[in-house]
């Protein structure tokens, strides 16, 4: 033990280590993304700079979520989870990371392995209702079982819960947005209804947290109220953004179909 400033108990050093590893991993991923995008541009591919900006901002959101944040304990925890589980995925997914990997990898074993994985039953994870269940189900387990209280003095469990939040958020956002190439295309209706149920589950959980804290925790009431309202309204904003992604996709796709119909002077098919 060579730590002279060992003042917050034995847990803090380990939390610090886990967070440092996660932050470095995030930074390395952003650097790899920027390098790959640069390589694509040098060989003449079009790769919009806004996607680089998006991915970098997403990485920054993930790193900020690892820092100690202002406000009460529960409010700070909520800001972290909103940044890591909702804002960061919303910035990472539109940067098309999977498309970038597929374009960067030369034909060979890693690329084949990735495509095999994408065509395996694992692609069902991108079935929107399943992705929503994994994301929102995990959230209900975290706040409605003693899990949150258990993470308090177990740094590794805390890091695992945090990583799951990011992974489930990315999975859900990718399943709703469908910007990267996917095996199964789900209709805007399927994705919209999934978003409706997921949003409702999020809003209901936020309202019940206002009245009832997670089991085994003792947050101050005002802290709990601020955190719950933050969860409710931030959830609204993220939901609006996701719905806009689906709507813009639908609008451009039907616009192309409409344009083709007008160009070829084919009378539009009457609705049944």
């Amino acid at each position, binding site marked *: 033990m060579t730590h002279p400033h060992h003042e917050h108990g034995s847990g803090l050093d380990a939390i610090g280590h886990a967070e440092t590893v996660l932050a470095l991993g995030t930074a390395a991923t952003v650097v790899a993304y920027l390098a790959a995008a640069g390589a694509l541009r040098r060989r003449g591919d079009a790769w919009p700079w806004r996607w680089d900006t998006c991915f970098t901002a997403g990485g920054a959101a993930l790193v900020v979520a690892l820092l100690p944040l202002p406000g009460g304990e529960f409010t700070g925890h909520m800001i972290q989870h909103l940044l890591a589980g909702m804002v960061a995925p919303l910035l990472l997914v539109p940067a098309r990371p999977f498309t970038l990997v597929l374009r960067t990898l030369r034909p060979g074993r890693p690329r084949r392995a990735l495509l095999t994985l994408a065509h395996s039953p694992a692609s069902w994870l991108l079935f929107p209702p399943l992705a929503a269940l994994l994301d929102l189900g995990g959230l209900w387990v975290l706040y409605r079982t003693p899990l949150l209280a258990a993470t308090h003095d177990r740094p590794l469990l805390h890091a695992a819960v945090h990583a799951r939040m990011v992974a489930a958020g990315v999975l859900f956002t990718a399943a709703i947005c469908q910007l990267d190439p996917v095996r199964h295309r789900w209709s805007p209706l399927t994705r*919209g209804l999934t*978003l*409706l149920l997921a*949003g*409702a*589950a*999020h*809003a*209901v959980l936020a*309202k*019940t947290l*206002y*009245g009832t804290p997670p089991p085994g925790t003792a947050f101050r009431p005002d802290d709990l*109220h601020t955190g*719950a*309202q933050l969860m*409710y309204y931030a959830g*609204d904003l993220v*939901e*609006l953004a996701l*719905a*806009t992604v*689906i*709507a*813009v996709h*639908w*609008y451009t796709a*039907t*616009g192309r179909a*409409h344009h083709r119909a007008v160009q070829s002077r084919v009378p*539009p098919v009457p609705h049944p």
Partner: protein
Amino acid sequence: MTGSPITPSAGPPVRAGRSLTAAALIGVALMAAVDEIVFHQILGWHHFYDRSTPKVGLLTDGLLHTAELLGLVTGFAWWADLRRRRALSSAHAWAGLVLGLGAFQLYDGLVDHKLLRLHQVRYRVPDLLPYDLAWNAAGLLLLGIGAVLAVRAAKAARTQR
């Protein structure tokens, strides 16, 4: 069918019902946003969570609140699509917008406040009745204006034909 040079008879049909529905979705969401911003946030009259709210109220509120947000985006996308196809009837869209505003106001006043008891118009006032009456009268008034606009839009569409 006097095929004028500006609107050829083979032009796209105007979708009156869809114009009304798309704008009504926007109207419902706009009134929900006004409720959230003015009465919850600025005036602080409504409570975020009322301890007397039953479970079914919370669930319904979560679903409808989310549906309003999605309705806003759906309504705008639908409206933009009709406009681009020159199938939008402005008169029907205005009627739909006002009908949507009124429908949400009345629904909020009767179902959310009274039936589901999510929260009340205002707390710590001697008598809640005037607030409830004013709230629901505003909803009825908007519905009435919307109905008048819808009838006028339908009449105008008939004389054009």
